[in-house]
């Protein structure tokens, strides 16, 4: 999906510093490449934004300003689109993005209680990221798995028929995975 030249992307990824917006001299050439790869296509804004978010994990403000300028789309419109789709985030996200479905079926089957339990367990609210950058919490509007309701997605993994009482276990599983990954890295 990334349609920018590899060395530019590598340079960008190396230049990233946590807590800071990406360096513009590294970021803008990559965005240029992405836009060029969609050149001439109507409605390219959303795929362009998706590509940037897949790369950086979120959409920093400077990336949106540059997209607006380069694609000649008003900045207000770009941010309006970003705010409309829950998939997009303008805040850095944690290693694990937890999305709790609040579609009709999941809601009826107790999705709200599951959400409350996760909120309690992680100490963050919807839209926030935990201090250790491990978890971000968001709400989704139907993942198309109503038969398995209530559903929680962690990154690309679907967890079905989640009960509030099982939330702690679920999170612990990811915390452990994170710790193992950290150890392996050391």
């Amino acid at each position, binding site marked *: 999906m990334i349609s920018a030249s590899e060395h530019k992307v590598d340079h960008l990824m190396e230049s990233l510093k946590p807590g800071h917006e990406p360096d513009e001299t590294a970021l803008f050439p990559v965005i240029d490449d992405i836009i060029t790869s969609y050149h001439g296509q109507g409605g390219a804004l959303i795929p362009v934004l998706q590509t940037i978010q897949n790369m950086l994990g979120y959409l920093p403000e400077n990336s949106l300003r540059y997209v607006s300028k380069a694609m000649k789309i008003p900045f207000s419109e*770009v*941010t309006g689109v970003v705010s*409309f789709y829950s998939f997009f985030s303008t805040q850095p996200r944690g290693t694990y993005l937890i999305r709790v479905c609040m579609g009709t079926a999941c809601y009826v089957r107790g999705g709200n209680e599951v959400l409350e339990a996760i909120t309690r367990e992680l100490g963050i609210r919807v839209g926030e990221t935990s201090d250790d950058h491990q978890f971000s919490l968001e709400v989704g509007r139907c993942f198309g798995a109503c038969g398995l309701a209530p559903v929680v997605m962690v990154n690309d993994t679907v967890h079905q028929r989640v009960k509030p009482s099982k939330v702690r276990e679920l999170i612990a599983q990811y915390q452990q995975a994170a710790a193992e990954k950290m150890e392996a890295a050391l």
Partner: protein
Amino acid sequence: MNSTVTLTIDNQTVTVEKGKTILDAAMQIGIDIPHLCKDDRLTPTGACRLCLVEVEGRPKLQTSCSTPAEPGMVVHSETPEIRKLRKTVLELTIAEHRLSCTTCDKDGDCLLQDYAYRYHINEHKYPSLEHKVTTMNYTAREKAFVYDPSKCIRCGRCVKICAEVQGIHAITFMKRSYEVMVTTGFNEPLKTTVCETCGQCVGTCPTGALYPKAAKQKGRAKDLEKIRTTCVYCGVGCQLDLNISRKTGELVMVSTEPGSIPNDGNTCVKGRFGYDFVHSPKRLTKPLIKEQGKFREAEWDEALDLVARRFTELRSEFGPHALAGFTSARATNEENYVIQKFVRSAMGTNNIDHCARLCHASTVTGLARAFGSGAMTNSIKEIKQAEVIFVIGSNTTENHPVIGITIRQAADSGSSTVIVADPRKISLTSNAAIHLQHRPGTDTALINAMIHVILEEGLEDRGFIEERTEGFDEMAETLASHTPEFAEKICGVPAEDIRRAARIFAGAETASIIYSMGITQHTTGTDNVLALANLALLTGNVGKMNAGVNPLRGQNNVQGACDMGGLPDVYSGYQKVADPSAREKFSRAWGVELPEEPGLTVVEIMNQASEGTMKGLLIVGENPMLSDPDITHVEQGLRNLDFLVVQDLFLTETAELADVVLPAASFAEKEGTFTNTERRVQRVRKAVTAPGEARLDWEIICDLSRRMGYDMHYASAEEIMEEIAFLTPIYGGIFYDRLEKVGLQWPCRDRNHPGTPYLHKDRFSRPNGKGKFHPVTYIQPREMPDEEYPLILTTGRMLQHWHTGTMTRKSIVLDDLVPHGALELHPEDAEARGIVRGDTVAVSSRRGMIHVPVNITEKVRKGTVFMAFHFHEHPANALTIAALDPIAKIPEFKACAVKVESFAEKE
């Protein structure tokens, strides 16, 4: 090919133009279908769901605002089912709206309230979903207006007007569902976005969600009276409604009405938010007489007696030509007429001029030579219908904002191709197909090169040239050397861009040239105008609808001040002083012998003042101490006068130097007319009472005239206009009763004449009826950059301020937006001088030096610097040169040589 559609609504038959909607058709026959999200200026939204109607044969209800009327449709607008549905829709809408009608300024002028009442809704049918009022929304730092999300019904009108009409896209909808809110990207304060603070969003809001901050608690609809008048800022002549409190008599706010001509309910930041000067405590309220260098208040009789005595003494001692008057492009037609009549009759001289000399004198001289008449050839509404709009030397967005937005709309919608020629990257360059960024003062080289290309490629309109023009061969002969390559060297614009621009211009069926002071304020001003006239004649782009040469006049009534004879060589309607029959006519009508010699112009009067031959000067509503070139010289001249009288609203920099200052009424305090840039004579109406003893300019002049032995009496402004109409053929049909709703465009020769939307149809107004080509060669600006003064200074204006700032700098909103001036400097020029962001710099020319904050920007080209002249603390005109165009006598404000140094270095 049927271009109309007939349908039936509620058993009434109605015929409308094809393309109109059901709602348009219903409104045409007075059927009031409720609608919250519709504004005629916007594309249909269909969001509020109130205008749903039943169309027989269609299974579902249709939104009448977005459904085109079709032949034979049978529509029911208010069945029991529809009523029920509307009630529910309103109840749901109200659930999102904070019910605060008891304290809301919009009470009585709120569509939501009207419909809630009409459908008798239950306000508490659904649980409240209202947004919490947070102080930190995007308008938190605005002085002009406030957004209250708790009253917002998400109709989208503000977002759409910002995008579709203003073309700015400053605001948008954020999030979705019940969380939707209007805001900017990242909730940035408006001030730091592209917002132009036009307040169109405030104007279109159907509820009290967006409201002008200054009007809070000053009155609801029933407490306010709306007085329709004409804006006193630029030459567009927006029709505004001054909302006056019935209790206090104060001007509370300005509103507009969609559909009004010429502005269709649009206006700019100055028109909507720049009127607090009217009630400024700094207004003059008593005549002032200077004694031992200090002003003291005086009674009117004493002040007028003194003025009359001194002017009479100077006249008998030095002759009438030692006296002069400056009339005012700010004043009404009636006042201008009276003032020029006073100068010619009571003073006995033609030394009458005004600031048109400084802005469009070369338009009058140039276009009169080429076409026979020096005014916009077309109407404002025709501009955006031209296939090509060539904007040269006009920062339209900032200086004629409402015309600016129509050009932006035309470019954005793709209906017109816009070519911009300007030394700066003005706002319109982002909408333009080509930007020719030429050096200041090289316009003739650029235009001649375009003409060269058109001739070389055979793109000219031969038929038009042969039938309607003369002088083509003489003009064409001089152009052999004016190739685009030659122009590239002079203008600094790639030859290929000039070729492209020429082809686009010549290829259009209708091309409209829009120009302003970037063309006129040069020593070659007349030549610049003539070159543009050549271009238009060459391509047959004049004398027809939508195509022509359109000088945008600066001041609210600069067109009128010229029309009224506020010029040294003509009486009203451009009847020449030198023409014995015209002189005879006015002499008989006014009952006085009139001087034969044309008089002096503004700069010549100043020169004579400093030489000591000019003795007495009357200045009405002008501030040459900031507006004229080389103000050190101006000050010396004014101080050198034996007697100076200034009539103004405020103690301006010029009034400070006067012997007597007379307090005048503002536009909001008087009846009269202004003539806008499209020659439309429009009414000005009294809305508030003048402060203290301030009086109408024409009354002051009449009193003065009587004291000087020439009796002038008028009962009203209307009576003055009757005299104007009687003596001025082009105003022959201008009568107040005809101007009630919409103004008339001159020429309007008699009572039944409908006015003239575009000029020179079938024949030009020159004596032989032909348009005339003039050979024009490139002459460089008088002062070119050199080693000592290496940069070219070009001056101009900005959106948020007006001229010498007398009014705008007293406005809370405008002063907050732009509190001081700045010098625009290219980054490379800044770097070469070690100047960085935030610095104050010293700018000097051979005539003066000022200190001013710097704005390092690529808006200017390298080697060129720009400054607006509004600011007395760093007056740009301390630097400019009083070199004149030999014909028009207009000074070269747009080019002089300066140097820029870091302030610290200078110290």
